[in-house]
């Protein structure tokens, strides 16, 4: 924000610093341990009176001088140059805070150089005592350099109380100073042994070669136990939260941890092997190999330490992208570009969005993510996203990915960044409004107000059955649409007929072979532990047949309807024709009703792939597989592998549908709590737009499930269900009350939108505690409010779909239609498909019997409001 950003693509993401630092760190530890190696080896030569060893030490000293002073010394300056280029703000903090530590380190650097030159160039020219003394001075100065740098490096990981008191000493002697110093000191000894192998095995004299190789092996092996112990000390000195983060919650770090753990015995074993008498042709390559392994070993440690520091460059003080933690809130309000001194675009317009996005990338992301380079390449990480999907991802990344800093900047900037990443890098675009959608033509069954004796009402119990159809990978729900019907014999006192009559249902012919368009039946056994024949539902229902009579109504349970007609395309409103016949087969009444069903789940916007069907719906294999891959990564499952081996799982086989469900793992969150609790982090503060990304409710989508009268008067999903955060918090709260830790963890990062604080959120169970119509329609009067969050039905039988009128005769849905599609309903599919029965029986789209049309069933006008109060009036929202 304060400095210009060196725009790197391939070389971004810290490649330069990694490339230079690994070598420097390795050599600089050699510069410390190797100093002790020199003086002790020289003492050994004196003690044993062995001139061959002394000559070896002289030779090794020259090698040491050339490696440490040239490559080591200059790359040290190189690291300094590099960090100042890549992260000038953090470098400036380190320089200004620790200037006198750096200056003192420089003093020791001078002493090192003078002492090493004197040591090497006075071999055999100074008395034993003086020569060794100079060697000891070199080692002391080198170790003091380590002492000082160690304080600064560990300050970045564990600054202790420094962020509060800004005191030099509390930052320098930080909580991991001493264990890290011990760890690095022992590491330096091991490395001295590894370099010792190289010079020892290159000795021409076989005897000397063996002697010195064994001597070098001692340097590797003797301190090893202390080295490991100090590593453990280092680990335990980390603050508990950081320790958990590093060792449990960062999947990337586990590679380096495993590398470190794996290479430890390899090094010991290599050291032991090299101590065996072998020809130089074997020991020399082995020595080089050991040196390389040591480099990787050190690299693993440094990557763990650096990785553990994420998302900070100075823990709890400055994020990896140079943003001070204290500035975050203000940046979120004012914006990055307007605050950044070196931004070219201060405001975002449609014309500059892409360029401004790139600029935001430079400021916010480039310090850790290369474009097409080897370090944290951003391209594969963003390949799966549309701009909106990535925008969502950015908004929640810090909660789910603990290594990422929270997004900084305004929502507008976030979208510009997402546009650069998704569109600029990949050409991915947001879905356009699904067009064209044509009004669906349906033949209206006849009804004669004067002649007909029966009124047949039918409805889908859910406003739209929403399901994912990547059945080869996973399934949220099976295809299972339920149609309910009531047959009324007209008269002054109408009767509900449920005996001596058969209700036949028949799905629209084009939808009768869903098995040809879906792999549900191939995977039903694995997904739902059932093997229905093709085109038969899980409960045994075919797509045409006889409805089951219940008291006063008829039901066709769990019809396996999919929105894919023969001939291709997507139609979320397949029609079901229902006929009432007497036992003799005479048709008493006929009607039609849509069985709304949709596979329009926008998972692909974040999970890659595309719509599977007709560019508007369906879950592609690529999308479904990515969902599992991410689940596997975040939750340590192996679902993708299982699916690829033909054993896909239903989500509910682990995540129960409800708290009291039998299925699933009782320790896990319910599916609803889990899926909403997780995704809410990415879809904060987006109103109903958040719902429409996964549910088929988007007004621009292919299903437009929210089509009822509430849509017409301007309400949306959040009016009744609350914002996504609230919705998720309610679900998570119920789980947290059951003692599920994950629920509390997910809830932690979510702020309630409708109420002031989380305590006010009412815990709720999915599929049980739902919005109650009477929250707003109190006493069936005109509502005084249009929001109803936090008041829920107490039990399942109070749900709208299960409720009936005050006479306990008619289901609410019989006259008002299913939730989300209440009469009068309309969307791009027209009016007819949604209001077929009002049109059939009344010639209008209003609830049945409204506008004082009691005669529809009663054949005469009525004065009693027997179905519910306030019904005898003109319909308000025509």
């Amino acid at each position, binding site marked *: 924000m*304060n*400095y*210009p950003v*060196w*725009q*790197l693509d391939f070389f971004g993401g810290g490649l*330069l610093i990694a490339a230079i630092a690994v070598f420097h760190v390795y050599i600089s530890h050699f510069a410390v341990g190797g100093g002790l190696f020199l003086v002790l080896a020289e003492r050994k030569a004196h003690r044993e009176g062995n001139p061959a060893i002394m000559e070896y030490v002289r030779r090794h000293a020259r090698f040491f001088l*050339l490696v440490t*002073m*040239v*490559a080591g*010394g*200059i*790359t040290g*300056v*190189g690291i*300094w*140059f*590099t960090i*100042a*280029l890549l992260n*000038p703000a953090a*470098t*400036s*903090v380190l*320089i*200004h*805070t620790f*200037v*006198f*530590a750096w*200056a*003192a380190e*420089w*003093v*020791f*650097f*001078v*002493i090192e*150089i*003078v*002492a090493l*030159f*004197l040591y090497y*160039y*006075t071999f055999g*020219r*100074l*008395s034993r005592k*003086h020569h060794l*003394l*100079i060697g000891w*001075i070199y080692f002391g100065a080198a170790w003091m350099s380590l002492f000082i740098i160690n304080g600064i490096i560990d300050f970045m990981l564990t600054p202790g109380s420094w962020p509060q008191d*800004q*005191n*030099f*000493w509390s930052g320098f002697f930080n909580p991991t100073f001493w264990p890290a110093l011990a760890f690095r000191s022992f590491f330096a000894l091991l490395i001295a042994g590894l370099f010792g192998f190289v010079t020892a095995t290159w000795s021409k004299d076989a005897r000397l070669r063996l002697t010195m190789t064994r001597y070098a092996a001692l340097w590797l092996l003797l301190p090893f136990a202390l080295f490991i112990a100090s590593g453990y000390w280092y680990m335990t000195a980390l603050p508990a939260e950081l320790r958990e983060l590093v060792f449990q919650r960062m999947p990337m770090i586990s590679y380096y941890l495993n590398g470190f753990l794996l290479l430890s015995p390899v090094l010991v074993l290599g050291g032991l092997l090299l101590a065996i008498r072998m020809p130089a042709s074997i020991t020399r390559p082995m020595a080089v190999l050991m040196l390389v392994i040591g480099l990787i070993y050190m690299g693993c440690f440094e990557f763990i330490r650096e990785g553990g520091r994420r998302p900070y460059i100075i823990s709890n003080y400055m994020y990896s992208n140079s943003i001070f933690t204290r500035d975050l809130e203000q940046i979120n309000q004012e914006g990055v570009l307007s605050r950044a*001194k*070196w931004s070219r675009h201060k405001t975002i317009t449609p014309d500059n969005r892409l360029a401004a996005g790139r600029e935001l990338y*430079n400021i916010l992301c480039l310090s850790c993510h290369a474009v097409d380079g080897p370090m944290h390449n951003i391209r594969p990480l963003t390949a799966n996203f549309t701009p909106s999907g990535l925008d969502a991802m950015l908004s929640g990344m810090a909660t789910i990915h603990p290594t990422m800093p929270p997004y900084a900047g305004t929502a507008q900037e976030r979208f510009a960044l997402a546009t650069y990443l998704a569109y600029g890098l990949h050409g991915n675009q947001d879905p356009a409004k699904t067009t064209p959608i044509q009004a669906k033509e349906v033949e209206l069954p006849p009804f004669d107000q004067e002649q007909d004796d029966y009124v047949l009402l039918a409805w889908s119990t859910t406003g739209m059955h929403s399901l994912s159809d990547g059945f080869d990978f996973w399934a949220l729900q099976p295809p299972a649409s339920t149609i309910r019907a009531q047959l009324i014999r007209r008269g002054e006192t109408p009767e509900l007929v449920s005996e001596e009559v058969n209700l036949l249902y028949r799905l629209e012919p084009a939808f009768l072979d869903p098995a040809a368009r879906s792999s549900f039946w191939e995977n039903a056994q694995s997904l739902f532990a059932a093997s229905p024949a093709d085109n038969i539902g899980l409960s045994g229902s075919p797509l045409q047949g006889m409805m089951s009579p219940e008291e006063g109504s008829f039901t066709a349970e769990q019809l396996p309807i999919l929105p894919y007609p023969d001939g291709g395309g997507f139609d979320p409103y397949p029609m079901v024709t229902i006929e009432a016949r007497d036992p003799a087969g005479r048709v008493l009444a006929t009607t039609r009703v849509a069985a709304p069903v949709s596979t329009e789940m926008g998972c692909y916007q974040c999970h890659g792939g595309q719509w599977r069907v007709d560019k508007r719906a369906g879950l592609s294999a690529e999308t479904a597989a990515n969902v599992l891959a991410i689940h596997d990564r975040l939750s340590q499952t192996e679902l993708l592998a299982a699916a690829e081996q033909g054993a896909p799982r239903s989500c509910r086989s682990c995540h129960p549908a409800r708290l009291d469900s039998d299925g699933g793992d009782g320790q896990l969150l319910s599916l609803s709590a889990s899926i909403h609790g997780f995704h809410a982090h990415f879809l904060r503060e987006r109103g109903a737009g958040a719902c429409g990304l996964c549910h088929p409710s988007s007004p621009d989508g292919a299903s437009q499930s929210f089509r009822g009268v509430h849509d017409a008067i301007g309400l949306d999903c959040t009016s009744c269900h609350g914002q996504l955060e609230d919705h998720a918090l309610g679900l998570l709260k119920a789980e947290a009350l059951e003692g599920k830790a994950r629920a509390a963890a997910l809830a932690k990062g979510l702020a309630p939108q409708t109420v002031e604080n989380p305590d006010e959120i009412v815990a709720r169970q999915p599929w049980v505690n739902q919005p109650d119509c009477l929250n707003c329609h109190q006493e069936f009067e005109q509502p005084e409010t249009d929001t109803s969050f936090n008041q829920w039905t107490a039990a399942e039988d109070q749900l709208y779909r299960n409720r009936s009128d005050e006479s306990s005769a008619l289901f609410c849905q019989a006259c008002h239609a299913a939730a989300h599609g209440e009469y009068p309903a309309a969307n791009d599919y027209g009016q007819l498909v949604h209001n077929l029965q009002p049109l059939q029986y009344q010639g209008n789209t209003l609830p049945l019997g409204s506008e004082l049309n009691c005669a529809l069933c009663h054949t005469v006008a009525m004065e009693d409001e027997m179905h519910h109060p306030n019904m005898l009036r003109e319909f308000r929202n025509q």
Partner: protein
Amino acid sequence: MDPATLIPTPDVIPVHWGWFQLLLLVTFFMHILLMNVMVGTAFIAAVSHFYRDGGSSPATTAISEKLPFAIAFAVNFGVAPLLFLQVLYGHFIYTSSILMAVFWLWIIAMVIAAYYLAYIYKYKYLQLNKGRAILTGLITLLLLLVGFLFSNNITMMLQPETWARYLERPNGLLLNLADPSLWPRYLHFMCSAVAVGGMAIALFFSYKRHKGESGLQPWIRYGCSWFGYATFANFWIGAWFAGSLPRGLITMDSANGVFLLIFLISAIITAVFAVVLALREQVLPACSALLGTLALMVLVRDRLRSAYLQPWFAPDELTVQASYSPLIIFLLFFVFGIALIVWMLRLTWKNLDSEEVSS
């Protein structure tokens, strides 16, 4: 665009800025001296080898032995002034470094290459023969390039009005080539290096003569000549440099301008003395005058920086968040370090056998 809006906000400093200014000037003096010896002797060796078709001379032999030391200490004594420069002017030097980041980072590779080549020159001197010209030529070229990049950065950091170019080219490939004072400034420094390199040669052979070796007078003269003629040339380059400075940069209306002029005139006077003494082959007096000139020129350079930055910044604007204990500890280490180094050198000198130190 107002360049002031681009200048980053500096961080707070722990002690009064004067401490850093003092440390910056002292350590920079050491660095520039060592750098001059390094570049100058490398240059002289290269010229010598080119003229002699790679042939050896006592001067090149001496240079081959000492060049790695010169590089080691030139780099080492570059660290401290760069540190103190960053404390006072970090928000300028970080910025200009980023603008020329690609070139700036190449410095590391070039110094490593020059350093290792210098060791090859040292250890393979006898075997090299004709290769010496190419090798020393390469070393000199690398070091001259490094110097050129430093000149670019150090001038670009002083000119925020040139920074907005970054907004069009953020890829770290900007240099300060449009600055008319860049080339004379660079040449002034490099010419000074050649002069100091010559003086170093004269001093070395003068020391050996003092130790009793004979027949060295031609090589003392050789060094003095290089010093004298290079310094003579540098008067003209210096004048060119002064003339290339922006009009109105140096005025006598401010104390800064007055001091600059006083330092500059003093430096020219001591330089004239140094040249005259050198041409008379009075090495030690000439050397003293040279050191005086260098010290004064360091002060001139410092005042020139103040003049450049005057519209934008002065170190006394930095906020002090006082914390003196680290300074005290550093000063203790500093004194201890100097004492230890002196003690080690004396110990070695006193106890070394009578032979010359060599590999």
